């Protein structure tokens, strides 16, 4: 009997496994349906939506200031960044002038937030690859940042730290000295993480050449933030379309060359250094003055629509807001969350890699499900 040529001699079935939504390393409620050939990933299907709260719809029934609270809950490891992008968009709609001191403090808060977010990323990414100690070291420093935020606005996670037109309050006394102290500690501890990872053979083998994405592909799939820069594309909203006080700051935009997991790691570590540099500059040149601009009692932007983007720790966070000019809430608010856009690249990144790499790759694109699902 003639054997069916299409059918191989051994019966090889593809194994479909369901990673998540309850899984220790999917960073929340991400679900990835993996099609495996042995341990090799043939295909991956990302299922999202488990944390959907309807933030965009909710904001149509909140007034403009209340929405700041909702933006807190998007990227809950970097809520100040989401706050900032939102209030700036509304200010753009209102054509409001923000006092210079407020813009400086916003920059400091945003950069502290970037440090906190990158520390959580580094810790969880390293832990996924098995280096548990790095996680605890990173959280140790993040704790200091949370303390700083707590002193500034009273909250440790969802800060509600920005207001349309400025800031809720001025800096507490001596806060700037504590921040400078923290900057020194951070740079010192960064060396500690690097001794554990950067030249570690196992770390190199686990991250070099894993999840390579070329610059062209990265742009095509819509990557933003550190994953995009890891592929060598120089794109940073802080530089390209400066907001807050970034136009007056001096900093470099680190980029990778190979677009692999290791380069993305190096890019983020360098960003930590650059953030410290920005914070020091901003504190050094902190102008005097009020922290709140002239904001009308009732915020009712004129009819129109606008889009404004910021560089959040995860990438480009943007808000598209349409106002009908009559009501005290937006007619339509749409968030462009960096995690959501970056997550799209996951199937492309994991194809052909092993199960263990899937975990490393979920880590490397740095997602927060609160932002993906909204």
């Amino acid at each position, binding site marked *: 009997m003639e054997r069916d040529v299409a059918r191989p001699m051994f019966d090889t079935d593809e194994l479909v*496994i369901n990673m998540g939504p309850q899984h*220790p390393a999917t960073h929340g409620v991400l679900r990835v349906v993996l099609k495996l050939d042995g*341990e090799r990933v043939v295909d991956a299907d990302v299922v999202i939506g488990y944390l959907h709260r309807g933030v965009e719809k909710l904001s149509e029934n909140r007034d403009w200031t209340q929405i700041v609270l909702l933006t807190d809950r998007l990227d809950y490891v970097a809520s100040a960044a989401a706050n900032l992008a939102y209030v700036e968009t509304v200010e753009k709609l209102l054509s409001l002038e923000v006092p210079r001191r407020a813009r400086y403090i916003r920059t400091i808060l945003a950069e502290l937030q970037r440090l906190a977010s990158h520390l959580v990323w580094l810790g969880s990414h390293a832990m*996924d690859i*098995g280096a548990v100690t790095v996680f*605890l070291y990173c959280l140790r420093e993040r704790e200091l940042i949370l303390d700083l935020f707590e002193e500034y606005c009273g909250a440790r996670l969802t800060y509600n730290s920005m207001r349309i037109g400025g800031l809720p309050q001025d800096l507490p006394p001596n806060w700037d000295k504590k921040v400078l102290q923290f900057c020194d500690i951070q740079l010192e501890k960064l060396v500690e993480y690097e001794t554990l990872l950067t030249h570690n053979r*196992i770390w190199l*083998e*686990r991250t070099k050449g894993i999840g390579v994405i070329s610059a062209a592909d990265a742009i095509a799939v819509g990557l933003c933030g550190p994953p995009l820069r890891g592929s060598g594309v120089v794109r940073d909203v802080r530089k390209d379309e400066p907001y807050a006080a970034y136009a007056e700051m001096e900093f470099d935009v680190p980029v990778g060359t190979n677009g692999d997991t290791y380069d993305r790691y190096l890019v983020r570590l360098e960003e930590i250094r650059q953030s410290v540099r920005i914070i020091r500059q901003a504190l050094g040149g902190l102008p005097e003055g009020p922290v709140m601009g002239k904001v009308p009692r009732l915020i009712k932007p004129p009819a129109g629509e606008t889009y404004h983007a910021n560089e959040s720790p995860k990438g480009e966070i943007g808000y598209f807001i349409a106002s009908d000019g009559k009501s005290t809430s937006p007619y339509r608010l749409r968030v462009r969350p960096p995690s959501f856009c970056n997550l799209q690249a996951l199937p492309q990144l994991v194809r052909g890699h092993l199960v263990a790499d899937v975990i490393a790759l979920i880590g490397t694109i740095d997602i927060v499900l609160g932002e993906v699902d909204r």
Partner: protein
Amino acid sequence: MIDLLVIPLIKIVIVLTGVLITVMYLVLLERKVQAWVQVRLGPMRVGPHGVLQPIADVLKLFVKEDITPVRADKVVFTLAPIIVLVPAIIAFAVIPFGDQVSIFGKPVPLHIADLNIGLLYIVAVASIGIYGIILGGWSSNSKYPLLGGLRASAQLISYEVAVTLTFVSVILASGSLSMVDIVTAQKANGVWFAFVQPLALFIYFVGALAETNRSPFDLPEAEQELVAGFHTEYSGMRFALFFLAEYANMIVVSAVATTLFFGGWLRPFPSVAFLHFLDFVPTWIWFVVKTFLVLYLFLWIRATLPRYRYDQLMRLGWKVLIPLAIANIIVTAAVKVALSD
């Protein structure tokens, strides 16, 4: 009668309880060491500095619901943890914990049995444990355990080869397969085999990490990838058996390392005469101290290194460790022949 039955039985009871208690406290030690490395305190609540934590853990595992998945193969599912644990414990039968002591004027050697093929016995017994892991992963009838079981079997078998090859070079150096004779050979040579066979020690240690599923080779139970690997579906006491076996295995490989490479119960520098005052320390204390130093290395490594990937682990085993081990045997044999002429 007394020599044949009573004394070995007493020894078995002592070793068994000793091993189980050590395992319990090894878990605590691991949590403490990890915590200290990671700027934490570790268990602090149960008893002063958490010294009673192991007892609380065991109690908890005893009273937990023991779930058998509906679609699991029930007989094999129950048998698997036993198959893993028993070999881990009976391996202690040939480990010499100390020199002879005299109790009531009667010389009693501090080992349960001095098999003339002691080392072979350990290799044989240790490889049985693998079956338990494979069967546990397979009988759960679930995907993550299956992947974990497959990884484990591949890993353990390949590293078993490298480890066994290092034994060969130790046998060449000592001229015996008996664990007691290996220690006395180190005394006669006046030097620990760690200095004679440093390469073998290195390969043995790496292989031992892999064989006990310890970081950086803890792939079969890689929490971030496979949930809990082959014992994902296990709970309660049956899970505890796997857990016990893992730590008992760690103690076995450390005890074997101590015996083969660090002079077993011998004091440091057994040939240096002016250190004789160290002889007042009972021999078994030296053994325990050395074993714990080796165990500490396991814990230290776990707190420091990331995890290897499956294919990298296999490459390291087959392309680096096994060729090195074979080369080591050839060189050892050549030197031995050259010296004997």
